[in-house]
């Protein structure tokens, strides 16, 4: 009878804890969406931020966030992929490998403000890149690399050893086995890893305040010359992102509708991250089906 009673008590507690987690999540999401969504409008998305008056939008911040994210992923993905392949497929299990893994773990818990200050000193000052998108992207790469690397490594390690053996027993080289068999099999996991880290990057503010800057320059979306100072593609221009914008209007902002702007921006940020998540999941499933030919089942 004791076992039965204890089991019941444990079950009740587990349900309570789950309920707490769900309540907190739903509370945060609900609060952000309920206060923000009514203020999200096409006008808000398509007009630039105003400095003094009410009614400004976040067009440039939204674009900057996406642009920074793309640049960051473009820089960090090849590096993280290479490092993860090394760690999971080539590295021997010795103290060097363990040191590398520990360093990556430590780096992944590095406070983003520290990464931001480091980026400020190295890229902004030392490399003389100034407050710019490229400084921000490099700082975010530093911030993103450890997590992305360990996410991809986990995805690779999730591929059963028997798949590697199958490839090798068929006379495929190590690299051919990795490229043709292990990587496609790990692809859904890798994509999930990219999305998880992308969400973090997209919402990051602290690492960007001192690197990408807090001011938006005048951007011309019809200027495709990436070297022109007004071009939206120019990576040397300072760029405020959505997350930094939220921080700014709440600290130094003098616009009268600061609360509305930050609520709407928060909602936008959350929605974009959710879209990323679902989009990448759909993409991952699609790619997996294509690669494994299971769509014609």
């Amino acid at each position, binding site marked *: 009878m004791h076992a039965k009673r204890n089991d019941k008590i444990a079950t009740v507690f587990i349900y309570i804890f789950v309920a707490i987690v769900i309540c907190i999540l739903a509370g945060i999401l609900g609060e952000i969406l309920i206060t923000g969504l009514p203020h999200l409008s096409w006008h808000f998305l398509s007009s630039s931020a105003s400095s003094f008056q009410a009614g400004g939008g976040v067009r440039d911040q939204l674009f900057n966030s996406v642009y920074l994210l793309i640049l960051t992923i473009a820089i960090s993905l090849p590096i993280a992929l290479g490092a993860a392949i090394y760690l999971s497929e080539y590295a021997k299990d010795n103290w060097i490998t363990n040191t590398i893994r520990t360093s990556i773990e430590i780096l992944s818990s590095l406070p983003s403000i520290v990464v931001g200050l480091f980026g400020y000193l190295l890229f902004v000052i030392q490399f003389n890149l100034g407050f710019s998108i490229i400084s921000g992207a490099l700082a975010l790469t530093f911030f993103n690399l450890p997590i992305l690397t360990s996410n991809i490594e986990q995805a690779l390690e999730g591929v*059963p050893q*028997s*798949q590697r*053996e*199958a*490839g*090798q*027993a*068929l*006379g*495929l*080289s190590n690299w*051919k086995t990795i490229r*043709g*068999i292990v990587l*496609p*099999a790990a692809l859904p996991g890798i994509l999930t890893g990219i999305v998880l880290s992308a969400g973090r990057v997209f919402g990051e503010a602290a690492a960007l305040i001192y690197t990408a800057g807090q001011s938006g320059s005048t951007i011309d979306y019809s200027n495709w010359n990436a070297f022109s100072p007004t071009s939206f593609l120019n990576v040397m221009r300072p760029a405020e992102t959505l997350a930094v914008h939220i921080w700014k209007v709440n600290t130094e902002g003098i616009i009268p509708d600061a609360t509305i702007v930050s609520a709407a921006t928060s909602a936008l940020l959350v929605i974009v991250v959710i879209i990323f998540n679902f989009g990448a999941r759909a993409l991952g499933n699609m790619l997996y089906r294509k*690669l*494994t*030919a*299971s769509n*014609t*089942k």
Partner: protein
Amino acid sequence: MDDLKKEPTYIKTFSSDELALSTKNLSVLYGGTIQKLFNVSLGFKKNAITALIGASGSGKSTFLRSLNRMNDKVATVKGNIIFHGLDVNKPNINVYELRKNIGMVFQKPNPFPKSIRENITYTLKADGQKDKQKLDQIVEESLRAAALWDEVKDKLDKSALALSGGQQQRLCIARAIALKPEILLLDEPASALDPVSTAKLEDTLKQLRSRYTMVMVTHNMQQASRISEYTAFFHLGHVLEYDVTSNVFTNPKGRITEKYIQGSFG
């Protein structure tokens, strides 16, 4: 157990023109100190099925995996493996080419998460075979040889993972023989299969016997007696007896072999 080295061994030998593959004093050490295999010298007759039997940990799988150098990264393999007069256990041997000549099928079916067709063509394409007609032809030949063609010919572009375990294992055999190897190493190929699939797999192996030399590790003594011509008995890293299968099972010479055959241990 400590005087196994003094235990008499009964090892059948073949004349060199009958041999497809042989080993001389093959020893395997893990981590440099733990010896799993002691000076195994065995010859495998061409176009025959040889079964390797023995209890868990007897070293039969370790031995099998050494033959196509799959143990290279995890263990030290000493001794000679003679294939076409060449010692293929030398460091300068191209193991990738070697493995195309000595195919392997594993305990658990491990088809690639690709289509049935691609499971077979992937390695061929990696090898430079691009002619689509030729590839289609090899796919059909290999699947027919593995007795899988009739079951899958209408769904070649569907996922191999949708096949049953037995079909997956025969696909793995088809995938191995698509490379036209001379030797097939089978590491307990039926142990993950149900009796019906096992029977089908055994039929397939019997049909392949005339064209391939097969070395098969098995836990299942009935299976060994059903389909193999020769049987080697492994015990704690030593081969104690190697003879025609019927002799090993009906008239074992060694006392440990006899005990194992009678089911006293293992």
